[in-house]
């Protein structure tokens, strides 16, 4: 699912059930095209549990992008109770992302 400046706070920062992974991406970014489907599949898989995964388009969500000082994409941030727990840059496979999320259950 895709988030924007309007619903980011509600879906990510106010979510307390588990960790939230956010994939910051753009349409013009080559590696993001590889990362996107990985995050989408993961989001589907996580639905039954408490972790969540979302995508944020840096061009259509400038406030959120500026707030987290995204200067390289794809950047993946793991939030827990509204706090940044981990920042991953570049392509990451689903297993790595799942392991990281488990750390913050």
């Amino acid at each position, binding site marked *: 699912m895709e988030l924007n400046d309007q619903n980011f706070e509600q879906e990510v920062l106010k979510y307390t059930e588990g960790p939230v992974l956010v994939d910051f991406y753009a349409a*013009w*970014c*080559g*590696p993001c095209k*590889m990362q996107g489907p990985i995050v989408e599949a993961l989001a589907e898989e996580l639905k039954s549990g408490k972790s969540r995964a979302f995508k944020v388009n*840096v061009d259509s969500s400038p406030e959120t992008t500026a707030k987290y000082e995204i200067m*390289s994409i794809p950047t993946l941030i793991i939030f827990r109770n509204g706090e940044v727990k981990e920042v991953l840059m*570049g392509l990451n*496979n689903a297993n790595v992302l799942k392991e990281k999320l488990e750390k913050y259950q």
Partner: protein
Amino acid sequence: MQKYDVIIIGGACAGLSAALYTARRALKTIVLTRDIGGQAAITTEIENYPGTGSILGPELMNKFKDQAENAGAEIKLTQITSIRKEGDEYIVTDGTDEYQAPALILAFGLTHRVLSVPGEKELTGRGVAYCATCDGPLFKNKIVAVVGGGNSALEAVDYLSDLCQKVYMFVRGDKFRADETEMLEQVQNKANVEIRFNTSITEIVGEKKVEKVKLNDNSELELNGVFVEIGYTTQTDFLQNLVALDERGQIIVDQQGKTLTPGVFAAGDVTNTPFKQAVISAGDGAKAALSASRYVKNLKGLADKPDWNR
């Protein structure tokens, strides 16, 4: 330990072509790679790959990936940490998992050259970048510097000057190495571009992100981003005990993509091929794959059937 017939390291033109070929020969194939598409995937438009017309780099590389996967190759995004040999088998590790196969194809291309100054590593992705077209739009209306005097540096300056408030260009020598005269003129005439010759960065400073740079004349300059565009180099030091390298660190291969080490093959930009081109890497990948296939089937006592039977 996961067992394969062939392990391919690198997932761009050479590696994915090799994977397509070994998978089609019914060899259990895995591609271990830190990205998909390598340099080609960060190229906007590729106009010299035959048969595709003009195509976006990421689009072409996605096709390579899909075709290799559809043929049966497995692709895993990971960074390998070591390779060792046990008997006839090679064992590749990525820190978490181990993969074993009698044949290896090394096809991980070139890595962008770094400045090797304090602050660079720590601030990579936090203002230090190596690809203007990838990260440039995140520096809209900011102040950035491009380091380098070649064509890629010039292209970066040209691209960034349309987005950024100000673009400094630091050239180490007293003139450009770029040969694109038209773009040179175009860049020199831009109001927000300032070119400084005989200039190099000695330190990149910033707490959480790039704040300023220190220069070789002891001056300091406040800015938000540093784009390093000083070319590409091999990253093959860890292979020294495995394969023969030339003086530039490139893997030495023969016409069939074989290294001097039995069972180890190589293809693409990481080898001593004189031409670094997508189509050449793809061809070399196929060649190394066919040699690897022959090697594995000989080892197993199987006949190596020609491709046209499928």
